[in-house]
Protein backbone atom coordinates (compact mmCIF):
# COMPACT_ATOMS: atom_id res chain seq x y z
CA UNK A 1 0.00 0.00 0.00
CA UNK A 2 1.28 3.40 -1.03
CA UNK A 3 0.06 5.68 1.79
CA UNK A 4 -0.08 9.39 0.91
CA UNK A 5 1.55 11.48 3.64
CA UNK A 6 -0.99 13.58 5.49
CA UNK A 7 -4.00 12.26 3.59
CA UNK A 8 -6.87 10.96 5.70
CA UNK A 9 -9.77 11.42 3.31
CA UNK A 10 -13.30 12.42 4.15
CA UNK A 11 -15.02 10.94 7.18
CA UNK A 12 -16.88 7.97 5.76
CA UNK A 13 -19.41 5.35 6.62
CA UNK A 14 -19.33 1.94 5.03
CA UNK A 15 -22.05 1.73 2.40
CA UNK A 16 -22.62 -1.81 1.12
CA UNK A 17 -24.41 -0.44 -1.98
CA UNK A 18 -21.30 1.39 -3.11
CA UNK A 19 -18.98 -0.51 -5.47
CA UNK A 20 -15.23 -0.14 -4.83
CA UNK A 21 -13.74 3.23 -5.78
CA UNK A 22 -17.12 4.95 -6.08
CA UNK A 23 -18.68 7.82 -4.11
CA UNK A 24 -22.30 8.74 -3.52
CA UNK A 25 -23.13 11.71 -5.77
CA UNK A 26 -26.29 12.45 -3.75
CA UNK A 27 -28.61 14.69 -5.73
CA UNK A 28 -25.98 15.46 -8.36
CA UNK A 29 -26.19 13.83 -11.75
CA UNK A 30 -22.99 14.75 -13.60
CA UNK A 31 -23.12 14.87 -17.40
CA UNK A 32 -20.24 13.07 -19.06
CA UNK A 33 -20.78 12.91 -22.79
CA UNK A 34 -17.96 13.85 -25.11
CA UNK A 35 -20.24 15.20 -27.79
CA UNK A 36 -22.67 18.01 -28.44
CA UNK A 37 -26.09 17.32 -26.90
CA UNK A 38 -28.31 16.59 -29.92
CA UNK A 39 -31.64 18.37 -30.33
CA UNK A 40 -33.73 15.28 -30.91
CA UNK A 41 -37.52 15.62 -30.71
CA UNK A 42 -39.62 12.56 -29.80
CA UNK A 43 -41.12 12.76 -33.30
CA UNK A 44 -37.62 12.32 -34.78
CA UNK A 45 -36.64 9.49 -32.47
CA UNK A 46 -36.79 5.84 -33.54
CA UNK A 47 -35.37 2.59 -32.24
CA UNK A 48 -34.34 -0.33 -34.45
CA UNK A 49 -33.36 -3.92 -33.66
CA UNK A 50 -31.54 -5.72 -36.47
CA UNK A 51 -28.59 -8.00 -37.26
CA UNK A 52 -29.01 -11.65 -36.26
CA UNK A 53 -32.77 -11.52 -35.67
CA UNK A 54 -35.76 -13.19 -37.39
CA UNK A 55 -37.63 -9.94 -37.90
CA UNK A 56 -35.64 -6.68 -37.97
CA UNK A 57 -37.97 -4.00 -36.68
CA UNK A 58 -38.08 -0.22 -36.18
CA UNK A 59 -40.30 1.48 -33.62
CA UNK A 60 -41.14 5.15 -33.67
CA UNK A 61 -42.00 7.08 -30.49
CA UNK A 62 -45.70 6.13 -30.51
CA UNK A 63 -45.13 2.48 -31.40
CA UNK A 64 -42.52 2.11 -28.64
CA UNK A 65 -45.04 3.53 -26.16
CA UNK A 66 -47.59 0.84 -27.01
CA UNK A 67 -45.25 -1.81 -25.52
CA UNK A 68 -45.84 -2.77 -21.86
CA UNK A 69 -44.43 -0.15 -19.48
CA UNK A 70 -41.58 -1.22 -17.24
CA UNK A 71 -39.51 0.78 -14.73
CA UNK A 72 -36.05 0.47 -13.23
CA UNK A 73 -35.78 1.42 -9.56
CA UNK A 74 -32.28 1.20 -8.20
CA UNK A 75 -28.74 2.47 -8.40
CA UNK A 76 -26.42 3.55 -11.22
CA UNK A 77 -22.63 3.70 -11.31
CA UNK A 78 -20.42 5.83 -13.55
CA UNK A 79 -16.84 4.81 -14.36
CA UNK A 80 -15.66 8.33 -13.42
CA UNK A 81 -16.42 7.51 -9.76
CA UNK A 82 -19.91 8.62 -8.83
CA UNK A 83 -22.84 6.40 -8.00
CA UNK A 84 -26.43 7.49 -7.68
CA UNK A 85 -28.84 5.69 -5.40
CA UNK A 86 -32.55 5.09 -5.69
CA UNK A 87 -33.12 6.46 -9.17
CA UNK A 88 -36.28 5.66 -11.12
CA UNK A 89 -36.35 5.35 -14.88
CA UNK A 90 -39.60 4.63 -16.76
CA UNK A 91 -39.80 3.03 -20.20
CA UNK A 92 -39.95 -0.47 -21.65
CA UNK A 93 -37.89 -3.57 -20.91
CA UNK A 94 -35.53 -4.42 -23.75
CA UNK A 95 -37.02 -7.93 -23.64
CA UNK A 96 -40.25 -6.49 -25.08
CA UNK A 97 -38.41 -5.21 -28.16
CA UNK A 98 -36.35 -8.39 -28.54
CA UNK A 99 -39.44 -10.62 -28.33
CA UNK A 100 -40.75 -8.86 -31.44
CA UNK A 101 -37.43 -9.05 -33.33
CA UNK A 102 -36.64 -12.62 -32.15
CA UNK A 103 -32.85 -13.07 -31.87
CA UNK A 104 -31.25 -16.01 -33.71
CA UNK A 105 -29.68 -18.64 -31.46
CA UNK A 106 -26.33 -17.67 -32.97
CA UNK A 107 -26.55 -14.11 -31.56
CA UNK A 108 -24.13 -13.61 -28.64
CA UNK A 109 -23.43 -9.86 -28.54
CA UNK A 110 -25.05 -6.55 -29.34
CA UNK A 111 -23.75 -3.21 -30.47
CA UNK A 112 -25.94 -0.38 -29.19
CA UNK A 113 -25.74 2.79 -31.28
CA UNK A 114 -27.11 6.27 -30.78
CA UNK A 115 -28.66 8.90 -33.03
CA UNK A 116 -25.39 10.83 -32.60
CA UNK A 117 -23.13 8.00 -33.76
CA UNK A 118 -21.96 6.74 -30.33
CA UNK A 119 -21.58 2.98 -30.00
CA UNK A 120 -21.08 0.53 -27.13
CA UNK A 121 -20.88 -3.25 -27.09
CA UNK A 122 -22.54 -5.68 -24.71
CA UNK A 123 -22.93 -9.44 -24.35
CA UNK A 124 -26.54 -10.30 -25.25
CA UNK A 125 -26.93 -11.94 -21.84
CA UNK A 126 -26.32 -8.55 -20.20
CA UNK A 127 -29.34 -6.96 -21.85
CA UNK A 128 -31.93 -9.76 -21.59
CA UNK A 129 -34.03 -11.26 -18.77
CA UNK A 130 -35.02 -7.94 -17.22
CA UNK A 131 -31.50 -6.45 -17.09
CA UNK A 132 -31.91 -3.59 -19.60
CA UNK A 133 -34.47 -0.95 -20.55
CA UNK A 134 -35.20 1.70 -23.12
CA UNK A 135 -36.32 4.63 -20.95
CA UNK A 136 -37.87 8.06 -21.55
CA UNK A 137 -38.72 9.08 -18.01
CA UNK A 138 -36.55 10.01 -15.08
CA UNK A 139 -38.20 10.52 -11.68
CA UNK A 140 -41.59 10.60 -13.40
CA UNK A 141 -40.61 13.40 -15.82
CA UNK A 142 -39.37 13.31 -19.44
CA UNK A 143 -35.68 12.35 -19.58
CA UNK A 144 -33.64 15.57 -20.09
CA UNK A 145 -31.76 15.75 -23.39
CA UNK A 146 -28.33 16.10 -21.73
CA UNK A 147 -29.01 12.78 -19.99
CA UNK A 148 -29.97 11.09 -23.25
CA UNK A 149 -33.55 12.21 -23.81
CA UNK A 150 -35.88 11.66 -25.48
CA UNK A 151 -34.82 8.02 -24.88
CA UNK A 152 -31.74 6.11 -23.77
CA UNK A 153 -30.66 2.60 -23.00
CA UNK A 154 -30.25 1.63 -19.33
CA UNK A 155 -28.07 -1.32 -18.31
CA UNK A 156 -27.76 -0.49 -14.60
CA UNK A 157 -25.62 -3.43 -13.48
CA UNK A 158 -22.73 -2.19 -15.70
CA UNK A 159 -20.86 1.15 -15.67
CA UNK A 160 -23.03 3.82 -17.16
CA UNK A 161 -21.11 4.38 -20.40
CA UNK A 162 -22.82 1.15 -21.56
CA UNK A 163 -26.22 2.85 -21.15
CA UNK A 164 -26.13 4.63 -24.51
CA UNK A 165 -27.83 8.04 -24.62
CA UNK A 166 -30.10 9.03 -27.53
CA UNK A 167 -30.40 5.34 -28.35
CA UNK A 168 -31.18 4.58 -32.00
CA UNK A 169 -30.82 0.81 -32.18
CA UNK A 170 -29.19 -2.49 -31.41
CA UNK A 171 -27.43 -4.75 -33.88
CA UNK A 172 -27.17 -8.39 -32.83
CA UNK A 173 -23.92 -10.16 -33.71
CA UNK A 174 -22.32 -13.58 -33.27
CA UNK A 175 -19.10 -11.96 -32.04
CA UNK A 176 -17.95 -9.05 -29.88
CA UNK A 177 -17.21 -5.69 -31.52
CA UNK A 178 -15.76 -2.92 -29.31
CA UNK A 179 -17.68 0.37 -29.24
CA UNK A 180 -16.55 3.98 -28.86
CA UNK A 181 -15.11 4.02 -25.32
CA UNK A 182 -14.02 0.40 -25.53
CA UNK A 183 -11.77 1.35 -28.47
CA UNK A 184 -10.60 4.32 -26.40
CA UNK A 185 -9.14 2.18 -23.64
CA UNK A 186 -12.17 1.32 -21.52
CA UNK A 187 -12.94 -2.19 -20.34
CA UNK A 188 -14.90 -4.56 -22.58
CA UNK A 189 -17.60 -5.36 -20.02
CA UNK A 190 -17.54 -2.74 -17.24
CA UNK A 191 -18.77 -4.53 -14.11
CA UNK A 192 -18.60 -1.93 -11.28
CA UNK A 193 -18.33 -4.58 -8.55
CA UNK A 194 -15.15 -5.90 -10.17
CA UNK A 195 -13.89 -2.40 -10.98
CA UNK A 196 -13.62 -3.19 -14.68
CA UNK A 197 -12.82 0.40 -15.63
CA UNK A 198 -10.06 0.29 -18.19
CA UNK A 199 -8.82 -2.35 -20.56
CA UNK A 200 -6.52 -4.61 -18.54
CA UNK A 201 -8.43 -4.27 -15.22
Amino acid at each position, binding site marked *: *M*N*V*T*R*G*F*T*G*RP*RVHNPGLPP*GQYDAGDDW*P*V*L*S*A*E*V*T*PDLAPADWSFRVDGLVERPHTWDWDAAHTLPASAYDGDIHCV*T*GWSKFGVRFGGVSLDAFLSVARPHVSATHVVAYSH*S*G*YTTNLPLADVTDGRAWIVWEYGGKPLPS*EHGGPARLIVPHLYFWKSAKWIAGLTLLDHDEPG*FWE*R*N*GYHERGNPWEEQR*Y*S*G*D
Partner: protein
Amino acid sequence: MPGRIAVSNRTAAEWQTATLTEIRRETPQAATFRLAVPQWAGHLPGQHLMLRLTAPDGYTAQRHYSIASAPDDSGNIELTLDHVPDGEVSGWFHTTARPGDTVEVRGPLSGFFAWPGDRPALLIGAGSGVVPLMSMVRHHRLRGLTVPLRLLVSARGPEELIYAAELGAETTPVFTRRAPQGVPVGRLAAAHVAPLLADQPAHGWEAYVCGSNAFAEHASRLLVAAGQPVERIRIERFG
Protein backbone atom coordinates in the same frame (compact mmCIF):
# COMPACT_ATOMS: atom_id res chain seq x y z
CA MET B 1 -19.36 11.98 -33.44
CA PRO B 2 -15.69 12.65 -34.17
CA GLY B 3 -13.20 9.88 -34.70
CA ARG B 4 -10.59 8.86 -32.24
CA ILE B 5 -6.87 8.62 -31.83
CA ALA B 6 -5.40 5.28 -30.94
CA VAL B 7 -3.84 5.12 -27.48
CA SER B 8 -1.87 2.41 -25.83
CA ASN B 9 -4.08 0.59 -23.35
CA ARG B 10 -1.21 -1.25 -21.78
CA THR B 11 0.23 1.40 -19.48
CA ALA B 12 -3.17 2.82 -18.55
CA ALA B 13 -3.88 -0.33 -16.55
CA GLU B 14 -0.94 0.11 -14.19
CA TRP B 15 -0.67 2.40 -11.19
CA GLN B 16 2.68 4.15 -11.03
CA THR B 17 4.30 6.11 -8.25
CA ALA B 18 4.69 9.80 -9.03
CA THR B 19 6.93 12.06 -6.96
CA LEU B 20 6.01 15.69 -6.50
CA THR B 21 9.01 17.82 -7.43
CA GLU B 22 7.69 21.38 -7.71
CA ILE B 23 4.62 23.48 -6.88
CA ARG B 24 3.93 26.69 -8.81
CA ARG B 25 1.12 29.07 -7.95
CA GLU B 26 -0.90 30.12 -11.00
CA THR B 27 -3.78 32.09 -9.47
CA PRO B 28 -5.21 32.44 -5.93
CA GLN B 29 -7.26 29.27 -6.61
CA ALA B 30 -5.02 27.22 -8.90
CA ALA B 31 -1.52 25.79 -8.69
CA THR B 32 0.60 23.63 -10.93
CA PHE B 33 2.08 20.42 -9.54
CA ARG B 34 5.09 18.95 -11.31
CA LEU B 35 5.48 15.19 -10.95
CA ALA B 36 8.36 12.89 -11.78
CA VAL B 37 6.94 9.68 -13.25
CA PRO B 38 10.01 7.77 -14.48
CA GLN B 39 8.00 5.09 -16.32
CA TRP B 40 5.63 7.57 -17.98
CA ALA B 41 4.90 6.27 -21.47
CA GLY B 42 4.19 9.72 -22.89
CA HIS B 43 0.88 11.28 -23.80
CA LEU B 44 -0.86 13.31 -26.45
CA PRO B 45 -1.89 16.89 -25.69
CA GLY B 46 -5.44 16.81 -24.28
CA GLN B 47 -5.23 13.45 -22.52
CA HIS B 48 -5.86 13.03 -18.80
CA LEU B 49 -4.80 10.62 -16.09
CA MET B 50 -6.33 9.06 -13.01
CA LEU B 51 -4.76 10.08 -9.72
CA ARG B 52 -5.09 8.16 -6.44
CA LEU B 53 -4.42 9.15 -2.84
CA THR B 54 -4.35 6.49 -0.11
CA ALA B 55 -5.12 7.02 3.60
CA PRO B 56 -3.37 4.97 6.33
CA ASP B 57 -6.50 2.80 6.78
CA GLY B 58 -6.43 1.84 3.08
CA TYR B 59 -9.16 4.27 1.97
CA THR B 60 -8.44 5.68 -1.47
CA ALA B 61 -9.73 8.69 -3.40
CA GLN B 62 -9.33 8.77 -7.19
CA ARG B 63 -9.89 11.72 -9.52
CA HIS B 64 -9.23 12.54 -13.15
CA TYR B 65 -6.79 15.32 -14.02
CA SER B 66 -5.85 16.63 -17.42
CA ILE B 67 -2.18 16.82 -18.23
CA ALA B 68 -1.05 20.43 -18.54
CA SER B 69 2.44 19.89 -19.90
CA ALA B 70 3.32 19.22 -23.50
CA PRO B 71 4.53 15.72 -24.28
CA ASP B 72 8.29 15.40 -23.90
CA ASP B 73 10.57 12.57 -22.93
CA SER B 74 11.76 14.01 -19.61
CA GLY B 75 9.68 11.66 -17.44
CA ASN B 76 7.97 14.68 -15.90
CA ILE B 77 4.39 15.78 -16.22
CA GLU B 78 2.48 18.75 -14.84
CA LEU B 79 -1.08 18.99 -13.51
CA THR B 80 -2.90 22.19 -12.66
CA LEU B 81 -5.52 21.89 -9.94
CA ASP B 82 -8.21 24.28 -8.88
CA HIS B 83 -8.71 24.37 -5.13
CA VAL B 84 -12.30 23.10 -4.82
CA PRO B 85 -13.84 24.21 -1.48
CA ASP B 86 -13.76 21.17 0.87
CA GLY B 87 -12.36 19.15 -2.03
CA GLU B 88 -10.90 15.88 -0.84
CA VAL B 89 -8.11 15.53 -3.39
CA SER B 90 -7.55 19.12 -4.54
CA GLY B 91 -7.68 20.10 -0.84
CA TRP B 92 -4.81 17.74 -0.04
CA PHE B 93 -2.76 19.13 -2.92
CA HIS B 94 -3.36 22.75 -1.97
CA THR B 95 -2.93 22.48 1.81
CA THR B 96 -0.69 19.49 2.57
CA ALA B 97 1.36 18.45 -0.45
CA ARG B 98 5.03 19.41 -0.64
CA PRO B 99 7.92 18.36 -2.86
CA GLY B 100 9.06 14.82 -2.12
CA ASP B 101 5.52 13.50 -1.51
CA THR B 102 4.35 10.59 -3.60
CA VAL B 103 0.96 9.88 -5.15
CA GLU B 104 -0.17 7.27 -7.66
CA VAL B 105 -1.21 7.82 -11.25
CA ARG B 106 -2.36 5.68 -14.15
CA GLY B 107 -2.61 6.81 -17.70
CA PRO B 108 -2.62 8.50 -20.07
CA LEU B 109 -6.33 7.94 -20.62
CA SER B 110 -8.74 8.58 -23.47
CA GLY B 111 -7.49 9.44 -26.91
CA PHE B 112 -10.80 11.07 -27.69
CA PHE B 113 -9.95 14.60 -26.59
CA ALA B 114 -6.36 14.36 -27.76
CA TRP B 115 -4.85 16.63 -30.41
CA PRO B 116 -1.69 15.28 -32.03
CA GLY B 117 -0.99 18.61 -33.73
CA ASP B 118 -2.11 17.54 -37.18
CA ARG B 119 -5.17 19.69 -37.88
CA PRO B 120 -6.13 23.34 -37.26
CA ALA B 121 -7.52 23.54 -33.74
CA LEU B 122 -10.01 25.92 -32.20
CA LEU B 123 -9.80 25.58 -28.42
CA ILE B 124 -12.44 26.91 -26.03
CA GLY B 125 -12.11 26.55 -22.26
CA ALA B 126 -13.25 28.03 -18.98
CA GLY B 127 -11.59 27.99 -15.56
CA SER B 128 -9.41 24.91 -15.15
CA GLY B 129 -10.84 23.71 -18.49
CA VAL B 130 -7.89 25.52 -20.02
CA VAL B 131 -5.52 22.83 -18.66
CA PRO B 132 -5.70 20.23 -21.48
CA LEU B 133 -5.90 23.07 -24.02
CA MET B 134 -2.66 24.53 -22.64
CA SER B 135 -0.96 21.20 -23.27
CA MET B 136 -1.96 21.67 -26.92
CA VAL B 137 -0.74 25.28 -27.03
CA ARG B 138 2.57 24.28 -25.44
CA HIS B 139 2.96 21.37 -27.84
CA HIS B 140 2.31 23.73 -30.75
CA ARG B 141 5.08 26.06 -29.53
CA LEU B 142 7.57 23.43 -28.49
CA ARG B 143 7.40 21.72 -31.88
CA GLY B 144 7.20 24.97 -33.82
CA LEU B 145 4.02 23.79 -35.52
CA THR B 146 2.54 26.06 -38.16
CA VAL B 147 -0.93 24.54 -38.28
CA PRO B 148 -3.42 27.24 -37.13
CA LEU B 149 -4.34 27.23 -33.44
CA ARG B 150 -6.69 29.59 -31.56
CA LEU B 151 -7.63 29.64 -27.90
CA LEU B 152 -10.70 31.32 -26.41
CA VAL B 153 -10.51 31.17 -22.64
CA SER B 154 -13.07 32.35 -20.14
CA ALA B 155 -12.22 33.41 -16.58
CA ARG B 156 -14.03 35.45 -13.96
CA GLY B 157 -11.30 38.09 -13.94
CA PRO B 158 -7.68 38.62 -14.99
CA GLU B 159 -6.35 37.38 -11.64
CA GLU B 160 -8.15 34.06 -12.16
CA LEU B 161 -6.81 33.51 -15.67
CA ILE B 162 -4.60 30.43 -15.39
CA TYR B 163 -1.31 30.61 -17.38
CA ALA B 164 -1.95 34.34 -18.04
CA ALA B 165 1.73 35.12 -18.50
CA GLU B 166 2.12 32.35 -21.06
CA LEU B 167 -0.86 33.13 -23.26
CA GLY B 168 0.07 34.76 -26.54
CA ALA B 169 -1.35 36.04 -29.78
CA GLU B 170 -3.29 32.80 -30.29
CA THR B 171 -5.43 33.59 -27.23
CA THR B 172 -8.53 35.70 -26.67
CA PRO B 173 -9.48 35.92 -23.00
CA VAL B 174 -13.13 36.45 -22.08
CA PHE B 175 -13.75 37.97 -18.63
CA THR B 176 -17.13 37.30 -17.07
CA ARG B 177 -17.01 39.44 -13.90
CA ARG B 178 -14.03 41.81 -13.87
CA ALA B 179 -11.84 42.97 -16.72
CA PRO B 180 -8.95 45.35 -17.23
CA GLN B 181 -9.87 48.91 -18.30
CA GLY B 182 -11.30 49.05 -21.78
CA VAL B 183 -12.00 45.30 -21.97
CA PRO B 184 -15.69 44.35 -21.95
CA VAL B 185 -17.14 42.14 -19.20
CA GLY B 186 -19.53 39.37 -20.15
CA ARG B 187 -19.78 35.71 -20.86
CA LEU B 188 -18.62 33.89 -23.95
CA ALA B 189 -21.00 34.85 -26.77
CA ALA B 190 -21.66 34.35 -30.47
CA ALA B 191 -19.62 37.49 -31.12
CA HIS B 192 -16.47 35.76 -29.82
CA VAL B 193 -16.98 32.64 -31.91
CA ALA B 194 -18.17 34.24 -35.16
CA PRO B 195 -14.85 35.86 -36.20
CA LEU B 196 -13.00 32.58 -35.68
CA LEU B 197 -15.45 30.69 -37.87
CA ALA B 198 -15.45 33.49 -40.44
CA ASP B 199 -11.68 33.18 -40.63
CA GLN B 200 -11.28 29.43 -40.84
CA PRO B 201 -8.40 27.51 -42.34
CA ALA B 202 -8.94 25.70 -45.65
CA HIS B 203 -10.50 22.49 -44.31
CA GLY B 204 -12.05 24.01 -41.21
CA TRP B 205 -11.35 23.70 -37.50
CA GLU B 206 -11.32 20.80 -35.13
CA ALA B 207 -13.00 22.26 -32.05
CA TYR B 208 -12.08 21.26 -28.49
CA VAL B 209 -14.31 22.48 -25.65
CA CYS B 210 -13.40 21.97 -22.00
CA GLY B 211 -14.82 23.10 -18.68
CA SER B 212 -17.80 22.54 -16.41
CA ASN B 213 -20.82 20.84 -17.90
CA ALA B 214 -22.74 24.14 -18.00
CA PHE B 215 -19.90 25.84 -19.87
CA ALA B 216 -19.47 22.90 -22.26
CA GLU B 217 -23.18 22.97 -23.14
CA HIS B 218 -23.09 26.73 -23.68
CA ALA B 219 -19.89 26.80 -25.75
CA SER B 220 -20.77 23.78 -27.88
CA ARG B 221 -24.18 25.28 -28.70
CA LEU B 222 -22.51 28.53 -29.76
CA LEU B 223 -20.19 26.59 -32.04
CA VAL B 224 -23.03 24.65 -33.64
CA ALA B 225 -25.05 27.85 -34.11
CA ALA B 226 -22.03 29.45 -35.79
CA GLY B 227 -21.78 26.57 -38.25
CA GLN B 228 -19.14 24.30 -36.76
CA PRO B 229 -20.06 20.68 -37.72
CA VAL B 230 -21.10 18.66 -34.63
CA GLU B 231 -18.86 15.78 -35.62
CA ARG B 232 -15.87 18.11 -35.37
CA ILE B 233 -16.53 19.23 -31.80
CA ARG B 234 -14.89 17.29 -28.98
CA ILE B 235 -15.97 17.98 -25.43
CA GLU B 236 -14.30 17.26 -22.09
CA ARG B 237 -16.59 17.90 -19.12
CA PHE B 238 -14.99 18.26 -15.71
CA GLY B 239 -18.35 17.68 -14.01
